[in-house]
């Protein structure tokens, strides 16, 4: 044979050779190749083994609908499984291997499955692996997973990044075939904002596969000329290598863009568009007959693509099998390339004659393909039942074309059956106005129809968007027509006929499902796995439905169809995650004194998004407890300070601010005087405690509320709800000032000394004039605006000083300087926690979403003389039983026994059973003040049990211990220190 193996095509560069490795062997392809076209050009037919039966498989299609040719692409640092050889653009040094075969592609031991196929048909797993049930997890599943399945993950992280991006436009065009390009051209000229997205790495869609003439040009030249016009328009963005994976509500689309030669591997785009046109073309479907899965059997249109676009010219002894006219275009192109065309087997009685040179076997069907690893020949049968054997190396099948309407289903719109083309088209019922199918995707299968449809629909969109089109011209093409007869599958023969190549679903499986009464399409799909997998049955679904229809003597529209769901093509989880991984998973908030604390030896703990200093390790402290105990002792005996800026601060102002505060807290605020702070307990409407904090009345109509660190956002949202949704008539304004004001707690018996040194002279902070729970706007350090609150979380004489955030770092340095004589120290959240437990203050661990005011011994605080959120339901009987949980203190019988949070409480004589459970421990610590471990917890009827001994059980740790119940306020129960 003198024919060259590669012919010329404008879409490949035969002068630029690329070497690649497949299954350990080196090959050469050229620039513009996909892995599939390069393999075909190298005569590599066997590419993969099938999912279930490990049957030999070859390349079947030329696009993202490929069911067979899944390979693993090997990168330096990771493997990319399930890559479709038909969409991977070849590059120099590409390494790929087959998956799902062992020990090699040619000698796959698991192909033994094929011999047992009688026993492992549809529903086999459901029927066989039923008992014993524990066998599923231990034996069956691991074995099945090993035998079946697609590629394997390398479990190494890709060191390239994924990113996310947002795009907005007036019109999104999905697909850049003839319809897409014409729409983009006309819409672009009008000036609206257009995005045209192409899945392939070149624009042009189906035009890249053809050699007829458009406006006296080759289709590829026409694509380049119109693209040139489109690219001149700054309002049109053309994005290739990008698959739209889903359509979502209100015109939102997801698209995944693969990048070459970039540090970023892929971008997940969220595109919001006023209108969208689906110009995704159509996909050819197969015809099941015996052994129709052999390598060498492909879709007829795909043979044409490889021939015309990629110049793969080593096809030989080609036979075609069809029920429609399109296949004759393939036949003519094969002949014009000098390829030995055996003929066309046409199921129709009177197909149109395209060229007398083409040998047509009319009214015939292929009943069986012959060959072991590759196709060697077929048996065909004619109308009168005569059997003929034909030798062939390649077989191109066409069972007709399905408009590619995957995306049109994503918002729940069912496709509709079109009797003219024997295929489903995008549904018109309840269609969202955001997406319309155009051209071939709209069932217009000839090029002239496509162009007219594109023009009509894009003009409609321009008119919807109230835009006038500019002058444009359309290409001239020869009239074409498309005719098809319905022919779905070959009935003759009892061997397996493949419907879904990827999932190894055969006609027999569909028959079995039908026999076993899985007759609805949804049941059929799940029982047989028809249409699942990475190709989502793009070549097989409608054929499967037709078989079901024929079994049940129904029409295809009566059988119905399943809905396609996103994603249109598989995408990695990483693509959806983007750069939100590791440290970037969530933002980190730093306190205003963070850098100072870091330099002073602090280690940090996460509190919500915040990083807070947990303790400050000093010289000779080799265990965190040494630091924490020292910090507690210093505060209790002298003075320390702590950055408490993370607590939520909400500024509340307005004529009705007092009334508002009084309504959102369950305790009384109506009589809070100006210059005073009060503890506030906030309930949810169901009567459970939501949060607590202090609120200061700075002036008549100005309040400052504090919240716990973690609830800062949710409390603010709740207050806005109360204001906007419940009491909009109130004159009150809310703003979160958490980030604007730094807050430093200064605590310890010597704290007043420190405060006196920084407060400007005109302000009197004596105990008499600035008593416990006082607040005032002041200036410090010679004029810096500040707010001083005499409140205490530690139980000591203490102040909290609020200053604009930018001064916080200087303030703490200054405190260290002026506090030298008092041996002032900074303390972290751990010491803060120890002191609040010693003082019996409830915090996050106690306010766990199940606790009422009663449980906290604060039942009497809930005023029933006023309306407040949660008041009414807090009075429910079930929340107010006398023997309910009460906050108690716990001291271990042996002081050095640590009590563990989460442990449960039992009477000494009771067995450890859920029925005898009396409560649980919420917080525990070592108290350096009491020189003992201590804990807080909730105990049934706890207030009446102070002094009782109790059993503590932690079955998870296997620990049991004993403790004495006591007042939760371990230190200074009468509050004398606070008021000193």
């Amino acid at each position, binding site marked *: 044979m003198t024919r060259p193996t590669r012919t010329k095509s404008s879409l490949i560069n035969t002068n630029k050779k690329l070497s690649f490795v497949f299954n350990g062997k080196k090959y050469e392809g050229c620039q513009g190749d996909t892995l599939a076209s390069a393999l075909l050009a190298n005569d590599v037919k066997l590419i993969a083994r099938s999912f279930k039966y490990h049957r030999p498989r070859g390349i079947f299609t030329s696009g993202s609908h490929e069911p067979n040719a899944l390979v693993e692409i090997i990168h330096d640092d990771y493997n990319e499984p399930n890559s479709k050889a038909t969409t991977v653009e070849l590059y120099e040094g590409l390494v790929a291997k087959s998956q799902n075969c062992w020990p090699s592609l040619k000698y796959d031991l698991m192909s033994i499955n094929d011999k047992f196929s009688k026993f492992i048909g549809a529903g086999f797993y459901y029927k066989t692996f039923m008992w014993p049930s524990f066998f599923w997890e231990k034996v069956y599943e691991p074995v099945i997973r090993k035998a079946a399945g697609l590629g394997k993950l390398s479990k190494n992280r890709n060191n390239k990044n994924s990113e996310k991006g*947002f795009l907005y436009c007036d019109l999104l065009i999905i697909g850049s075939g003839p319809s897409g390009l014409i729409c983009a051209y006309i819409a672009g000229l009008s000036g609206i904002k257009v995005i045209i997205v192409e899945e392939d790495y070149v624009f042009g869609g189906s035009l890249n596969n053809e050699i007829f003439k458009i406006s006296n040009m080759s289709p590829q030249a026409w694509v380049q000329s119109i693209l040139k016009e489109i690219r001149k328009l700054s309002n049109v963005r053309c994005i290739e290598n990008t698959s739209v994976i889903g359509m*979502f*509500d*209100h*015109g*939102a689309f997801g698209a995944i863009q693969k990048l070459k030669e970039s540090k970023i591997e892929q971008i997940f785009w*969220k595109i*919001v568009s006023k209108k969208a046109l689906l110009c995704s073309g159509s996909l050819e479907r197969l015809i099941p007959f015996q052994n129709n899965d052999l390598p060498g059997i492909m879709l007829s249109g795909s043979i044409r693509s490889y021939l015309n676009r990629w110049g793969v010219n080593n096809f030989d002894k080609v036979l075609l099998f069809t029920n429609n006219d399109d296949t004759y275009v393939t036949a003519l192109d094969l002949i014009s390339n000098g390829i030995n065309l055996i003929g066309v087997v046409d199921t129709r009685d009177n197909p149109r004659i395209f060229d007398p040179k083409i040998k047509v076997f009319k009214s015939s069907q292929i009943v069986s393909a012959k060959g072991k690893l590759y196709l060697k020949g077929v048996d065909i049968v004619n109308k009168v039942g005569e059997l003929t054997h034909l030798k062939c190396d390649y077989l191109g099948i066409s069972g007709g074309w399905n408009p590619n309407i995957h995306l049109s289903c994503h*918002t*729940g719109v069912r496709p509709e059956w079109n009797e003219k083309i024997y295929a489903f088209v995008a549904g018109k019922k*309840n269609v*969202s106005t955001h997406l319309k199918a155009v051209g071939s995707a709209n069932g217009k299968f000839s090029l002239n129809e496509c162009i007219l449809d594109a023009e009509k629909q894009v003009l409609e969109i321009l008119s919807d968007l109230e835009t006038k089109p500019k002058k444009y011209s359309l290409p001239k093409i020869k009239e074409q027509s498309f005719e098809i007869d319905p022919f779905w599958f070959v009935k003759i023969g009892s061997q397996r006929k493949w419907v879904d190549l990827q999932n190894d679903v055969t006609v027999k499986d569909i028959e079995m499902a039908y026999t076993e009464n899985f007759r609805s399409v949804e049941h059929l799909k799940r029982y047989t796995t028809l249409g699942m997998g990475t190709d989502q049955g793009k070549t097989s679904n409608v054929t499967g439905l037709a078989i079901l229809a024929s079994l049940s003597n129904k029409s295809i529209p009566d059988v119905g169809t399943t809905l396609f769901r996103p994603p249109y093509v598989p995408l990695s989880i990483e693509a959806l995650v983007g750069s939100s991984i590791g440290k970037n998973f969530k933002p980190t908030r730093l306190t205003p004194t963070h850098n100072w604390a870091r330099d002073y030896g602090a280690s940090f703990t996460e509190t919500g998004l915040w990083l807070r200093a947990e303790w400050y390790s000093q010289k000779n402290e080799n265990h965190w407890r040494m630091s924490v105990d020292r910090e507690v002792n210093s505060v209790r005996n002298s003075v320390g300070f702590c950055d408490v800026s993370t607590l939520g601060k909400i500024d509340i102002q307005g004529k009705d601010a007092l009334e508002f505060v009084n309504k959102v807290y369950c305790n009384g605020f109506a009589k809070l005087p100006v210059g005073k702070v009060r503890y506030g307990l906030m309930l949810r*409407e*169901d009567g459970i405690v939501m949060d607590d904090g202090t609120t200061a009345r700075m002036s008549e109509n100005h309040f400052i509320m504090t919240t716990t660190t973690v609830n800062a*956002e949710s409390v603010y*949202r709740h207050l*806005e*709800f109360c204001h*906007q*949704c*419940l*009491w*909009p*008539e109130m004159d009150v304004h809310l703003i979160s000032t958490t980030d604007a004001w730094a807050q430093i707690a200064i605590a310890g018996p010597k704290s007043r000394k420190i405060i006196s040194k920084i407060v400007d002279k005109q302000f009197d902070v004596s105990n008499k004039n600035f008593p416990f729970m006082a607040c005032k706007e002041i200036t410090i350090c010679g004029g810096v605006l500040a707010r001083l609150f005499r409140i205490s979380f530690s139980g000591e004489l203490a102040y909290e000083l609020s200053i604009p955030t930018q001064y916080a770092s200087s303030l703490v340095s200054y405190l260290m300087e002026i506090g030298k004589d008092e041996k002032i120290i900074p303390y972290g959240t751990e010491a803060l926690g120890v002191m609040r437990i010693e003082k019996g203050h409830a915090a996050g661990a106690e306010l766990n979403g199940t606790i009422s005011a009663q449980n906290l011994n604060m039942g009497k605080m809930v005023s029933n003389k006023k*309306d407040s959120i949660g*008041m*009414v*339901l807090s*009075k*429910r009987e079930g929340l107010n039983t006398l023997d309910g949980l009460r906050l108690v203190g716990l001291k271990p019988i042996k002081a050095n026994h640590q009590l563990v949070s989460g442990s449960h409480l039992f009477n000494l004589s009771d067995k450890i059973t859920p029925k005898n459970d009396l409560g649980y421990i919420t917080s525990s610590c070592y108290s350096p003040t009491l020189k003992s471990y201590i804990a807080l917890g909730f105990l049934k009827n706890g207030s009446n049990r102070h002094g009782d001994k109790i059993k503590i059980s932690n079955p998870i740790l296997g620990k049991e211990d004993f403790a004495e119940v006591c007042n939760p306020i371990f230190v200074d129960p009468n509050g004398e220190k606070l008021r000193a």
Partner: protein
Amino acid sequence: MIIDHPLLGPRDASEFIYLGDASLLNRPKWDEEKSENNFYKYLYLRENVAGMHKELWFHQQGDRSWLVISRNTVTHEIFKVELATEFKKNMGKSND
């Protein structure tokens, strides 16, 4: 989803936090005879609508306004977006 904010125009749904049925605007009176029962109904008994639904959304990453959105829970179509304050005022009565 895109929410057409009455002040800010179309915004992505990811900027919002969903709360639920807008019947939460009808908070019962606290000092009536059956107030406990009324609050119980207010808080726990909801219609589970397949179709048109009025619901509350908060523009957390925006202007912090609460919105009442009329949405079809089957098709996700949004028909109306109102500021909760306006909606509440138009209800013609305060519930206090």
